[in-house]
Every structure is written in C-alpha cells, then in structure tokens.
C-alpha cells in the first residue's frame, strides 16, 4: 500500500510523540492532521474511524490503527527495529515498557493542579534517576555495545533517547551520574535520521504549553484537573 502514514492527534506530544520519533528514526515521512476543535473529533467518532473512540490514530497500510503500543509495534516490526528473534523482541519490549512507564509519569503533568505539578515533577526525576536510568546504564555497561539490544539499532534505543531528553528538559543534569547514557545519548543523537528529527522545523513537538492543554480540554470537554499518579 502506497502513501505516507497519516497521524491524527493534537498538535503536541502526548501519546503520539513516541510514534513520531519511531517513524522519523526509521526514515519514514508522515503527514499529520491536528485536532483543534470538538467537531473534528466528533466527526472522527461518527465516521467510525476511532476503534475505541480514542486518539492517537494512524492511517497506515490501509489500516486505521489505534492504541499507541499496537501502532508502535507495527512500525517497529515493519521497519526492522524490533530485534532479530523473539528473545530480542522480549528484551526490547521490557526496555520500552520501562521507558513508557517513565514517560507516563510526565504525560498528565500539564493537566495537573499547580501543587500536584511540583510533586509529580519530583517523582518523575526521582524515578528516572533511581529506578530507570540505572537499569539502562547497567545494560550498556555490561555488554559494552552501542545499542541496547543485539548490537543493533532498535526501537528500544529510540525510546530511551526520547525519555532521556524529556527528563533533561525538567532537570538538565540528570545524566551526570550515568556516563554510559551520556555516550549513548551522543551516539544515538548523531544517527542521521534522529539528527534530522532533532533539528528545528522537524515534526518533533515542543514541551506542552497552555495552548496545548486548552486544546485537549476543549476537544475532550475535560475541564477538571487530573489526579497525580
């Protein structure tokens, strides 16, 4: 099936950002349709385009895919970023689930009340430096290879870089205790497709701002503060 994948989401990171990263890293160009109004969302619902009434939704290879993990796995497998066998896939899955949990801590952050924001930020940085980064640091140290799994660039590397940059946006020196992650960050950032994605003008989205929060609230008609995790 020809044609670029088309991403349906807000003009912001949220749950779509790892998908943008993965496509970009795989060197795959994609189009985006940004949800700005409630009417657009309702139309998608009415047209039956959203299997569980939710976004992200990605039109790819004749499918209207939903559920970010399903989408990510499909892309990873299609573009050979999912290991060479089931065991490598399992390692990649474990690592990605870890970085997903980590990035999940900051996902709702823009929607929290101000007092909850402070606490959540502290939790995010603490979990990054105490639970997650030490794991990836050790993996890289133990095998001494450039990439997390199977001595080959994979989804796990892309996801980890995304997580590292996200943590650094909140606490710029979090990698100070992790020399292998520092080297990893430098190496992966220099991979041509990633380098391109990190340049201004790419489809990478900025840190969520008030406009983003407002748009999401308006489209979902969700005006309450979210509870912190």
């Amino acid at each position, binding site marked *: 099936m020809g044609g670029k994948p088309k991403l349906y989401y807000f003009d912001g990171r949220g749950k779509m950002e790892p998908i943008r990263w993965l496509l970009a890293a795989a060197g795959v160009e994609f189009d985006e349709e940004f949800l700005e109004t409630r009417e657009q969302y309702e139309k998608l619902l009415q047209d039956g385009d959203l299997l*569980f009434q939710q976004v992200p939704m990605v039109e790819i290879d004749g499918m209207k895919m939903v*559920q970010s*993990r*399903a989408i990510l*796995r*499909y892309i990873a*497998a299609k573009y050979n970023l999912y290991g060479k066998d*089931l065991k490598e*896939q399992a390692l990649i899955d474990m690592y990605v*689930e870890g970085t997903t949990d980590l990035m999940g801590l900051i996902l709702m952050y823009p929607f929290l009340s101000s007092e909850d924001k402070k606490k959540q930020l502290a939790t995010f940085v603490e979990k990054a430096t105490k639970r997650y980064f030490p794991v990836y640091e050790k993996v890289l140290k133990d095998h001494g290879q450039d990439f997390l799994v199977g001595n080959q660039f994979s989804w796990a590397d892309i996801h980890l870089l995304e997580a590292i940059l996200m943590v650094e946006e909140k606490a710029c020196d979090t990698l100070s205790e992790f020399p292998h992650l520092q080297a990893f960050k430098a190496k992966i950032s220099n991979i041509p497709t990633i380098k391109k994605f990190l340049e201004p003008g790419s489809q990478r989205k900025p840190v969520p701002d008030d406009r983003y929060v407002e748009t999401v609230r308006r489209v979902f008609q969700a005006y309450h503060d979210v509870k912190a995790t």
Partner: protein
Amino acid sequence: MSGKPKLTYFKGRGRMESIRWLLAGAGVEFDEKFLETKEQYLELIKGGHLLFDQVPLVEMDGLKLVQTKAILNYIAGKYNLHGKDLKERAQIDMYVEGTMDLMGMFLMYPFSPPEQREAQLASIIEKATTRYLPVYEKALKQHGQKFLVGDHFSWADVQLIEAILMLEEKKCDILAQFPQLQAFKARACNIPTIKKFLQPGSPRKPPPDEAYVATVKKILSLG
C-alpha cells in the same frame, strides 16, 4: 531450555492473571511462587531478579521477563497466538490493548476506599458497555467467524473471555445486549485448554479480597 515457566507474584489476580490465562490458553503448564512477605520481595530485588524492581516476574527460556505486556507478547509469539502476519498481529494488538485498558480499570478497584468503589464500578460498567464490548460484538458480527482475528484462536480471544468473565462477576447480565459475545463466550469456555483453566483446582485466581489487598499493601509498602 527445558522446564516450566515460573511465575512470581502475589497469590491473586492483579497484573499476573492475564499471563496465567494466556499460558493456560496455550496449554502450557507453569509453576508459581507466591510473595507473602516483604522480605521475599526485598530478596528478589537484592538478587537482581527484577529489572525495574517490580513484579510480575516470569522466568522462562533462560529469561527473567518483567513488564506484563512484554511477557504477554513473548508468550503469544512463542505459542503462535499472535496472528500469522504483521497485519493480523496489528489487529490482535489493538484488541488486546483495548481489553487490557478495560481490565486495567479493575486493577485499582480493590485498593480504593470503599466509599469510592460504587462510583468506580459504575464507570467500569459504563465503559465496558459503551466503549469496549460493542467493538468486539461488531467485529464478530461483521466477519461471522468463531474467533476475533484471522479465523483462528489467538491472544485476542483469550483476553476477551477473561474480560467478559471479570465483568460478569460484577454484573451478571452484562452481555444481555451482546448476542455475538454470548455465543463467543460459550464457544471460548468450551475450548479444552480454557475449559480446564475454568475448573476448580486450576491456577486461576479468585476475585481479590481484603486479605489479598492487605498482603499487597504490606509487601509494596503502600498506604
């Protein structure tokens, strides 16, 4: 690598139950180690067995697998319950992510304060009947086949039957408006491996009770 998979978790459903279902559905026998004390848990962490200091842990084929979705993915792949190609896999993945979102709502339910539970349950039932069950009902109606994807038994079917039974425990007539799902349920419960898992004495765990909640809270030092 010979030997049965070994599951380490609390003696209850939680995040391990879907893994028990999938192994059972695949006809794979497994052993279980139940966490009863905080000391056992700390020992696992000290011994470096838990990649992110969390359970579930499943030891199989020389791997110490953690992260529920990674574990399920591995089992589905290994036992041919993940579709015959990438597109079937994508369809199965979408369906199981849906059922996992739904069953995920049950995870925190026993840990909520009693006064919040009624409202939470109502929300779960509402989401089940308006967002999730209609999707599976429609899928079965549209292709008229016995299984959700590709006309063969897959991870998606195992998850769906697990979710249906979990919902029925809370609302026995939840399938009243879903004739296809009723038929699906009857068929699925008669699949030999599933039928066996549904019999008393199987590793299937009962709904969480206060003792289970207390154990988990103690071991994980939750409030």
